[in-house]
């Protein structure tokens, strides 16, 4: 069953056509990679899916709900979509535990609840979820450390814990291994594989082919604002159009 359907999406910035008639179907409980050279429109597409940008036309449906027409990022999150950013977006002044407790609270209490009286420390279900999730990404021991001092790889893992604690249906990862060392990249791949075993759909936008071919069940190749190839990793590997998009553009 398709969890996310994108069809006929166009987006222009002034005279620049960023997306041209993009069609994409993401099957439930798969890892779907979107690859493409720089400037292919990957981030624009992600922003169109997350309510940050409004496409000029087209349809974006998540689990039967349209993600277009004035719906805001927090509403999309409440539907079960969580996003991991290219540069980790965490609460750098707060402890790791607090970082994960906030999304956990968002899941338990919804988008807004005035809960100004009872201490947050007494919300057992919230802190238990948060600690377990930190343990799963291997950060439980550092849960009282202030997040700002973490390495980039650890921040990324924290951000994943922040998303996973919400038990999202769809996880969007924007270059999850960008700027990481080889060792950190491999750790991230292992972590994502483990996450992929649960009932969760993932969309990964990535440059690193090693990451893509280690993880993806399905790959869409984006070039010049449109999906040029769409298929299983095996079929993508040798496709001349993909090689053309990656190499031809730069050489020619």
């Amino acid at each position, binding site marked *: 069953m398709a969890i996310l359907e994108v069809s006929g999406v166009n987006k222009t910035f002034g005279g620049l056509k960023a997306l041209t008639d993009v069609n994409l179907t993401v099957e439930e409980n798969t890892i779907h990679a979107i690859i493409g050279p720089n400037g292919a429109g990957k981030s624009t597409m992600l922003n169109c899916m*997350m309510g940050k940008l409004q496409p000029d036309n087209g349809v974006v449906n998540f689990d039967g709900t349209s993600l277009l027409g004035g719906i*805001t*990022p*927090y*509403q999309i*999150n*409440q539907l079960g979509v*969580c*996003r991991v*950013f290219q540069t980790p*977006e*965490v*609460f*750098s*002044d*707060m*402890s790791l*535990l*607090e970082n994960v*407790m*906030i*999304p956990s*609270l*968002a*899941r338990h*209490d*919804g*988008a*807004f*609840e*005035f*809960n*100004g*009286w*009872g*201490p*947050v*420390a*007494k*919300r*057992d279900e*919230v*802190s*238990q979820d948060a*600690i*377990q999730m930190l*343990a*799963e*990404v*291997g950060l*439980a*021991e*550092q849960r*009282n*450390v*202030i997040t700002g*001092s973490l390495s980039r790889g650890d921040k990324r893992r924290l951000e994943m814990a*922040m998303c996973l604690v*919400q038990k999202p249906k769809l996880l969007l990862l924007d270059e999850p291994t960008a700027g990481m060392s080889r060792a950190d990249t491999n750790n991230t791949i292992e972590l994502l594989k*483990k996450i992929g075993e649960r009932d969760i759909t993932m969309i990964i936008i990535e440059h690193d082919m090693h990451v893509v071919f280690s993880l993806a069940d399905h790959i869409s190749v984006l070039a010049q604002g449109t999906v040029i190839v769409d298929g299983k990793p095996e079929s993508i590997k040798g496709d001349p159009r993909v090689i053309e998009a990656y190499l031809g553009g730069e050489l020619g």
Partner: protein
Amino acid sequence: MSQKLEKIKSPLDMEPLTIEVHDVEASHRAKTARNDLILMVVFSAVVLGGPWILAPFGADYPDLLQRFCIFGIFAIGFNIMFGLTGYLSFGHAAFLGVGSYAAVWSFKLLTMNAVPAVIFGVLCAGLFSAAIGYISLRRAGIYFSILTLAFAQMSYNLAYSVLTPITNGETGLQLELSDSRMLDAAMGIERTSSLPVTNLFGMKMSGYEGFYFCAIILIIAFYISLRIFRSPFGMMLRGIKTNQNRMAYTGINTRPYLLTAFVISGMYAGLAGSLMAVTDPLAGAERMQWTASGEVVLMTILGGAGTLIGPVIGAGVIKYFENIFSAFNEDTLHAAYSFLPEGLADFMTTISHPFVGEGWHLTLGVLFMMIVIFLPGGLMEGAQRIANLFSGAGKKSKAESSATDTQPAE
């Protein structure tokens, strides 16, 4: 703490993890609860013992003590907005003014009892701040500050001009013999030939009685702020301050959180304003001027924005300077330097003269600059550093010292 957690490296061992962590969390929670209790007890003792504690500093007269409490409340409330969410409001004096006017109207129309005046003041300020907050919170950062400033200045000018029927313009709103005081009349309280005084069920609200009334409200206000700091709501507000973008992508609708915080802090300002009217029943538009809004910003930053107790200390320091330093003159300086040889004493007097009396702003300005440059966390950061020095925190592991940092400094 770290020893117990050693066992939970493998993500698959979920069962023991839950139990171990629960123990650690329970003890951590008990410690926080105990610290908060100690904080409340010490705070209450210091506030109620104010007249004795401040006697050696020449600040033990009730007028000033009342002002310490009132501005303490004002700063605590301001800190809920600025300290927790990072949204800098430059118009909080407007809510203070509304609280004052509302309280005086309660005295004029209903009764000289302080309780309805305070409730009425808080409610009016709450409504007013909901309206201003709703509009101002459409913008963040400097634009939010400018919007709040604009609203406050607008209120200030309106109070002087078109709203004169409500505010009595330049003269300020005062009690009059002809006031109706319906509740008092209904209860058969006799009209006197002189102006009545504010009271709390018969106890007059000037002097030390007034101070203790304000002091108890300050303690309650502080307790409420403590609860807000420790609550999920407070955590959300800190999240907004740290990374608003992440909050949005985390499924949090930040606007109602901000508006609630703004209204709460506006109600604190209204409470402070109505207490001003309780201790001295008149209200003037100058309370709404932008300098008054700026003053509470200074208090909060001076003491330590985002800390629980910092704003109260900041309010105390500024009010102390305003009232005590400004009263110093050349003779007091001469007396202070009398132990020095004649020439040196004269020299010192000349040097320090610009810093006292009318020049107290200069001292305050220098102090403020020093704190912002050397202690960006305010006086509370200074206190924390001194405390760390004594407790030998340098020896602690980095992880542990940052673990203590997760609680806002008390």
